[in-house]
């Protein structure tokens, strides 16, 4: 916003005048603004980066005192140095930050010739040693990106350090200062101002020198910027950051085209010989590696009108974008398949392509599938098309999900990037389905409904149909994609929250899915979606459950009877034959299986779950079965911290519990007191009774804030209502837990009476209320 920019400029002018008055009339000295102050970008809480430059005269310390002390006393943050021109240039040579700061050196007061000689010297040094400095700069950028992440996709981004943040633009300027790439264009400058304004507003709102936009400040910062809400702010920032990140990548590609060749040391290397104009020869060095022609004219056709050259994909001289609407997708597909970026000048020419006719001609569809099928390399090509506005020209509905943040700790990308990443993941498994093209398109569209209010699966189905019609898909294929979008959460949800051994579960999934073709697509889509969401959303436990469900559903669709409910293994049967009480612990890959055998009695399952919780074991699933009058309960557990506890301790406690010699409630209460207090306000828990999920039992689904012993609390509440818990399944989604219980009444039947059902819901809610630690305010 103009007001913010004017404020920054005014603050700089004000400080210029003040520092000049502090210096007074002195010869042989100059005050030089460097860094952000040099750029006249003083935010309310910015440092003053000031260099007192002198010619080696006497009495410089007294002059420094005269300036620095009043600045310190004013409370301003000062980054100061007192140096001669040769000293300043020497420090810059060994310190990248100082060198970058000097690129913005600006005369404030004193002898202007002194400042000018520093500016010229520092720039000459920068250009003369460009090869080394620019590779240092790239390393610094890579390090920043690894530490601070990517601004566009973070919920709490660091506006300065993250990839796509302010420092990236400074890096482009530094590359440009070495005459290697052009200076930032108008789009990048506008994006820079947007992020700078957000940082400015952050300083004003918090009154502190902060660069990280934390969640609590989103709405207030948005308001200060005149934006609707925090989501609008994040969308603006994501758009700006992607523009900057893309431009920075392009600038660094010119530093060494085609990326760093294998075997090339990341830094150092031989100093580059100078061209007659003083231009560093970094580009030429990169070119010469690619072929015998030193001018770098090796052109390799990769598609009609598209050639690969110098590690980039460009348009052939004969290509005619204005008469070739399919060229955009053809060039993108060729670039992605070759694993090369689209050259910026090619993108500019592609923007002249006329819009594709609706419905799309077959070559356009094929090119889209070839692009998506390229896997990970499609992501950067897609990003490049997006930056030129070519994606929304192809698929107008894409605009609704572009840069849309996902306020959900499980997601690491914005919606649009998540869709592209999912398609890229799906491409890696395309051979597992009969129709890879439909899989890729379903992956690209599965969350498109998030751009509209309401259930995104439901909206998404409608939007997906529109998109399929636009790109000219056959009606049957469009139906399959619409169904895949509608049901893309079906498999993971059912697999983690329902009893797969219950025939009703598989029957319902089979009825919903209906065909093997859709089932395969849904299966791969679930995996690709989970992987693209983030590390917390997908793991081997979920993968096993989903593929288990798919196998059973496949059998059902093929007309085979469902497999009998999970039989006990021989060793478990042997254990049961002894009548118990007995406990065995088996370590699996990353979980453990605990089998508890005891004479059957109600409440066994949740009591055992309580014991496990007291050992800091998170129960993932629990299954109870009976052998005669002996109950065999099998738990799958995961240690909350580090390794599994000693098996003998756990089984000892379980035996004491079975013998009635262990107060589980007391144990858990003591643990709860030791747990760190929570201050975040969690939404109230939710309890749902689901009837049609099983014929043998009623399903109680509880969604609550996760906490130690949750299963035990709920199980105890159910037990106190006189219910028997047959099976339990626990899924954690970040801080949220979904606990599912298959319960029967005292006669082993599903729950019927309305009064009992209401009592059950109340009892469970009550048990969760007491879970809240008293310290929560």
């Amino acid at each position, binding site marked *: 916003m103009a007001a913010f920019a004017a404020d920054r400029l005014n603050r700089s002018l004000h400080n210029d005048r003040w520092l000049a008055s502090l210096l007074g009339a002195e010869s042989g000295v100059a005050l030089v603004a460097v860094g952000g102050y040099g750029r006249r970008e003083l935010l309310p809480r910015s440092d003053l980066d000031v260099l007192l430059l002198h010619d080696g005269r006497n009495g*410089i310390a007294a002059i*420094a005192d005269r300036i620095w002390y009043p600045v*310190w006393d004013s*409370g301003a943050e*000062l980054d100061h*140095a007192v140096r001669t021109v040769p000293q300043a240039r020497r420090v810059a040579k060994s*310190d990248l930050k100082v060198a970058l700061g000097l690129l913005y050196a600006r005369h404030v007061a004193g002898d202007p010739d002194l400042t000018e000689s520093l500016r010229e010297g520092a720039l000459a040094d920068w250009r003369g040693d460009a090869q080394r400095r620019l590779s240092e700069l790239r390393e610094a950028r890579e390090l920043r990106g690894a530490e601070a992440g990517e601004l566009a996709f973070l919920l709490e981004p660091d506006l300065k350090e993250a990839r796509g943040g302010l420092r990236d633009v400074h890096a482009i300027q530094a590359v440009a200062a070495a005459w290697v790439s052009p200076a930032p264009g108008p789009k990048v400058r506008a994006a820079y101002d947007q992020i700078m304004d957000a940082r400015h507003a952050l300083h004003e709102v918090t009154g502190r020198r902060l660069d990280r936009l934390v969640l609590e400040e989103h709405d207030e910062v948005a308001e200060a910027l005149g934006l609707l809400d925090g989501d609008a702010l994040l969308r603006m920032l994501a758009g700006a950051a992607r523009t900057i990140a893309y431009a920075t990548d392009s600038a660094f590609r010119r530093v060494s085209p085609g990326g760093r060749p294998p075997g090339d040391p990341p830094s150092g290397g031989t100093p580059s010989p100078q061209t007659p104009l003083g231009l560093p020869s970094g580009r030429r060095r990169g070119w010469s590696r690619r072929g015998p022609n030193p001018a770098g004219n090796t052109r390799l056709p990769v598609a009609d009108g598209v050639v690969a050259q110098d590690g980039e994909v460009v348009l052939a001289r004969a290509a005619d974008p204005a008469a070739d609407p399919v060229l955009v997708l053809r060039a993108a597909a060729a670039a992605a398949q070759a694993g090369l970026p689209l050259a910026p000048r090619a993108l500019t020419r592609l923007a002249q392509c006329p819009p594709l006719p609706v419905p799309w001609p077959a070559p356009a569809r094929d090119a889209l599938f070839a692009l998506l099928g390229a896997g990970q390399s499609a992501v950067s090509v897609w990003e490049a098309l997006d930056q030129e506005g070519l994606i929304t020209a192809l698929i107008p509905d894409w605009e609704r999900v572009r840069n849309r943040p996902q306020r959900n700790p499980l997601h690491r990308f914005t919606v649009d990037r998540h869709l592209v990443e999912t398609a890229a993941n799906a491409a890696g498994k395309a051979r597992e389905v009969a129709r890879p093209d439909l899989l890729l398109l379903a992956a690209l569209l599965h969350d498109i409904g998030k751009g509209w209010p309401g259930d995104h699966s439901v909206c998404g189905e409608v939007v997906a149909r529109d998109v399929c019609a636009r790109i000219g898909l056959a009606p049957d294929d469009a139906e399959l994609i619409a169904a895949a979008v509608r049901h893309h959460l079906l498999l993971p949800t059912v697999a983690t929250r329902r009893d797969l051994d219950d025939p009703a579960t598989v029957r319902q999934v089979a009825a919903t899915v209906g065909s093997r073709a859709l089932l395969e697509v849904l299966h791969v889509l679930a995996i690709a979606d989970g992987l693209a969401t983030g590390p917390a959303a997908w793991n081997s436990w979920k993968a096993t459950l989903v593929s288990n469900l798919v196998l059973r559903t496949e059998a059902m669709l093929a007309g085979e009877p469902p497999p009998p409910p999970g039989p006990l293994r021989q060793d478990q049967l042997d254990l049961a034959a002894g009548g118990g009480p007995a406990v065995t612990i088996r370590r699996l890959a990353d979980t453990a299986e605990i089998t508890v055998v005891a004479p059957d009695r109600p409440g066994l399952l949740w009591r055992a779950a309580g014991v496990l919780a007291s050992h800091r074991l998170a129960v993932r699933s629990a299954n109870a079965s009976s052998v005669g009058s002996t109950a065999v309960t099998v738990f799958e557990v995961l240690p909350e911290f580090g390794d599994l506890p000693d098996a003998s301790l756990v089984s000892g406690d379980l035996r004491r519990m079975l013998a009635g010699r262990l107060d589980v409630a007391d144990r858990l209460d003591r643990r709860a007191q030791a747990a760190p207090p929570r201050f975040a306000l969690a939404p109230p828990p939710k309890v749902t009774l689901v009837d049609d999920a099983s014929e043998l039992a009623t399903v109680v689904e509880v969604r609550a804030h996760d906490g130690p012993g949750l299963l035990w609390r709920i199980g105890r509440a159910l037990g106190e209502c006189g219910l028997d818990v047959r099976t339990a399944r626990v899924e954690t989604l970040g801080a949220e837990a979904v606990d599912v219980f298959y319960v029967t009444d005292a006669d082993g039947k599903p729950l019927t009476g309305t009064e009992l059902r209401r009592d059950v819901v109340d009892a469970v809610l009550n048990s969760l209320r007491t879970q809240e630690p008293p310290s929560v305010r």
Partner: protein
Amino acid sequence: MRLITAVIKPFKLDDVKSALQAFGVHGLTVTEASGYGRQRGHTEVYRGAEYQIDLVPKVKVEVLCDDEDAEDLIGVMVKAAQTSRIGDGKVWSVPVETVVRVRTGERGPDAI
């Protein structure tokens, strides 16, 4: 009772000690410390060290005293520690609820 804490330049410790002695303070605790303040540890005006925060060695002096002596003691310590250059440090005081002399079990002002 109050606890007065002074973080000062190490070479000023002797001056502060003698000034306190002259004032009649017979007990104090000295700790080696390090830290930085508004100048971020830039110890001299001349050098300048861009963007770096240095931890500067300091000495921390702690004195327990009666409420009515606190202001005078602070004045004495500030005067003794002053060089008028950056990094001279800070002096502050906080109220103290209980003081016990371990050997005799005396409590309150008697224990000072």
